[in-house]
């Protein structure tokens, strides 16, 4: 059996995403480009890692929900919009670009799978 090699990948290589707002909360839907990569997302992209990735931006908790039927995860980032919507002074007051911000994340994948 070939030696397993673990390599770093950016999330954008295996996933796509869309984000939006609800009050001071941002949701990010993270979708595997290929269904077979969904387990990698489940394993690598934990709520804790997402909270860490959005350090300084998400002040509250991060919740994660699984949608295996869509090969997707849904993240809720609490207190992530500087008060939310019309209160926010942010350049992205509706969290529309949090999707691509998440896709910057580096994850570890099996070299064979990559």
């Amino acid at each position: 059996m070939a030696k397993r090699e673990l390599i770093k990948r950016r999330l954008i290589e295996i996933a796509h995403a869309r984000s939006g707002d609800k009050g001071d909360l941002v949701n990010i839907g993270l979708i595997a480009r290929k269904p077979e990569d969904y387990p990698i997302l489940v394993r690598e992209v934990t709520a804790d890692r997402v909270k860490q990735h959005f350090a300084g931006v998400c002040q509250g908790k991060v919740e994660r929900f699984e949608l295996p039927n869509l090969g997707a995860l849904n993240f809720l980032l609490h207190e992530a919009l500087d008060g939310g919507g019309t209160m926010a002074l942010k350049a992205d007051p509706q969290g529309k670009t949090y999707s691509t911000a998440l896709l910057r994340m580096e994850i570890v994948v099996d070299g064979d799978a990559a």
Partner: protein
Amino acid sequence: MIRIANGQGFWGDSLEAPVDQIRRGPIDYLTLDYLAEVTMSILQKQRARDPQAGYARDFVDLIARVLPDLKDRRIRVIANAGGINPMGCRDAVLERAARQDLPLKVATVTGDDITDRLDQFLKRGIELKNMDTGEPLSAIRAQVERANVYFGAFPVAEALGLGAEIVITGRVADAALTLAPMIHEFGWKETDWDKLSAGIVAGHAIECGAQVTGGNCQVDWETIPDLADIGYPIVEAEPDGTFSVTKHSGTGGRVTVASVKEQLLYEIGDPTQYITPDCVADFTTVHLDQAGENRVRFSGIAGRPATNYYKVSISYTAGYKAMGSLVYTWPDAYRKARAADQILRQRLTRLGLRFDEIRTAFLGANGCHEIPAAEPTPEIEPHLPEVVLRVGVRSENRAAVDRFTREIAPLVLNGPPGVSGLGLGRPRVEEIVAFWPALIPKSEVRPEVAIWPSAS
């Protein structure tokens, strides 16, 4: 099978999209979503100046433009264009129809506006607590502008049952606009939870217009054909609750499982509990198939009984804000922008101005993403060609915000070099209208459905 199209994802969306939906292929129903949360407050300001205003005027112009087509093609229109004055919207539409000598049946769905009843509710112990923070409404009662309940699809279906060719609503859940014609055509009952949930998922899929047909889509975005002529979405619904999302042939864009997944995940919370006035849909039951080119089929959708509450959106004033921008250029664009930010903050402090918040974004460096992973590396940072410094302030005190707006332009001459004011002029002071989401027992409010001309 019935075809339900969306021609407007928000007020301000393409003016041509609804016309294209009507003229470039077959549809039975056209749904139009005009009411973002902030829209109600804008409409209130308009109505304060003109008692006849307070609805989406674009909608009236649209109907006047396409009325002969609607008649020829027997297309019925459902729109939440009524805002805070659905009757005024109805009258304006009827007047424009009369000018064209075209008879028209227009129904309204009202009763969503509970602004004048808030004190009565509070007195009776209905606290209208903030769903996110738990605070009672009394905390901001004096600042409240409007309070509107989100109704479901059944009153809209009732309006269709009365023979309305156009249904104008106040606040109705966005997805309910799509579910309503299914209830009307297929005779779905208030306890058909799976079918109602299917209709809600269909509504969610198309309620943001072209965001499901290739707009804002990350998968192979550069190969998506002809975004300039992007087709808006159409649901082809079956009586058993299955449906397909597609678009008119000959239009641009792309409908794929990937584009649909992105939209399904847009602005949702717990996917097993998508709560609407009509049912609680479970997004983890949705099964998608690419059933053809630009056609995705949905099946398997299940849901649960509706809750005993309606959601209420309460808008209230929350102080003032302003945003100013300057662009700094190479070399050391980012360092200059950061230095200018510090200088500006020192001046604001020296002026004795206090703000609830001062916020800076450096566009071109990490202005939107703002996370550590997006920060430019020390190697590339000095070489960034240009960086926009964007500073915003927020305060209860309008004068402080106004004074801030006068401190941006001077930096061009009395701050770091190589800077342009972007030709924007002095920033505008804006009053902030914020939102207070709450719940109210369904028994406290009742939708009212009426049709003009009334039954003959």
